[in-house]
């Protein structure tokens, strides 16, 4: 059974009707505020208790696609956008445990871009920022340029795992196995590593998977999918709660397959078009009117609430 979760209203129903409709559907009311014309979800509630602030919930933040080094019309100041996001994160009433960056840290894989990104990420008031590479991070030297700045465990591998708050995190690299005319792939070595990594875990352990390119096929003509994702998902299927966090497409799309929920994220650089839009044949940066860009870039808070299989996600645009 799949669940469609709209993240931005496509029309403007009466507020009361919208809230009651949402309440009937999820059994919870979503608290929204509207600031500067931009709706922001403050959190889902059940009765009076905001789920996202339960004291035993592990909360972290996902950011993605910062493209440090990009300097064109769609966003002449990507550093400013990242700084805006960092200010939003640092202003959270409860600081997240850590931040994850789901790839395309740089725009052209240049050392100065990686250096600048690393410097900026250190401005976030968290102990750790876990990153994975996107295809913009592996131009020229494969993953070597990226690893000089973002080697997670110091062992020269761009994939890794870690545990925190009772949750097992798996970070994958699906931007290395590009072959002619086909989708990116995780590759056999990484799939074998994943199988070994998951093997000893109790099936009740919540799993969060980070991968840059979506682990389901959204639009193959634009490379929005992973050729061997079915094998990865098969390894994850036995677990009771699996959340996949992706980037790459610079917009939020979601899919639920049984116990596996997959979510792509907004970028902090520029928006990309939706596939199938009339007159748009390629996934190039979209220039929007002044003042609109902030509504299309944003960050995501993720909370793991004990006893709930699905994680609570709050997507927040930059505009304020």
């Amino acid at each position, binding site marked *: 059974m799949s669940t469609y979760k709209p993240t931005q209203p496509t029309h403007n129903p009466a507020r009361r009707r919208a809230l009651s409709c949402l309440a009937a559907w999820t059994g919870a009311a979503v608290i929204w505020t509207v600031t500067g014309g931009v709706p922001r979800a403050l959190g889902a509630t059940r009765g009076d208790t905001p789920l996202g602030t339960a004291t035993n919930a592990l909360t972290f933040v996902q950011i993605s696609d910062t493209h440090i080094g990009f300097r064109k019309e769609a966003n002449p100041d990507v550093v400013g956008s990242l700084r805006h996001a960092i200010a939003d994160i640092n202003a959270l009433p409860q600081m997240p445990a850590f931040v994850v960056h789901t790839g395309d840290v740089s725009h052209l894989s240049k050392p100065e871009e990686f250096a600048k990104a690393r410097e900026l990420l250190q401005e976030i008031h968290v102990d750790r920022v876990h990153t994975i590479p996107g295809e913009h991070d592996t131009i020229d030297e494969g993953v070597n340029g990226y690893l000089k700045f973002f080697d997670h465990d110091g062992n020269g591998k761009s994939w890794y795992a870690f545990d925190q708050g009772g949750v097992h995190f798996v970070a994958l690299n699906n931007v290395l196995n590009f072959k002619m005319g086909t989708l990116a792939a995780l590759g056999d070595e990484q799939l074998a590593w994943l199988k070994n990594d998951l093997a000893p875990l109790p099936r009740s352990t919540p799993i969060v998977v980070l991968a840059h390119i979506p682990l389901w096929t959204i639009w193959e003509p634009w490379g929005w999918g992973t050729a061997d994702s079915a094998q990865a998902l098969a390894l994850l299927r036995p677990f009771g709660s699996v959340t996949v966090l992706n980037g790459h497409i610079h917009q939020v799309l979601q899919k639920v397959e049984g116990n596996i929920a997959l979510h792509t994220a907004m970028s902090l650089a520029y928006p990309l078009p939706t596939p199938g839009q009339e007159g748009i*044949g*390629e996934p*190039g940066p979209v220039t929007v009117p002044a003042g609109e860009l902030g509504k299309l870039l944003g960050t995501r808070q993720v909370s793991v609430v004990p006893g709930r299989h699905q994680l609570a996600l709050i997507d927040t645009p930059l505009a304020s």
Partner: protein
Amino acid sequence: MNHTFFRNAGRRFPPRTALVLVFCAALVTPAIFAIAAPSTSTVDIDIAKFAYGPKEITVAPGTKVVWTNHDQTPHTVTSNDKSFVSKGLDTDDKFEHTFASEGDFGYICTVHPFMTGVVHVHKQ
């Protein structure tokens, strides 16, 4: 221009003008012969809207092909046999390769592997 011009120059024009004219003619004459000499042919391929245009070309051995990226997004030109591999090309960056031997050379953009092209190299 032939040497008749040079011989008659002194008779037709005042001496200083004649000298200048002869000097200019002497400079131009070798240039005319140089233009007529054969040069390497160059074929241009545009990278635009996430595609190589033209996507498929046929050239003679010794032809130089120049790719220019017109997109805001970086692309590469990477042959399947790795015989030519560009660095990441930002907007307006160029990459060139001279095809010495015959063959069919398929290539892709490593950032966007759905972008493909091919250069056929055959004696003509």
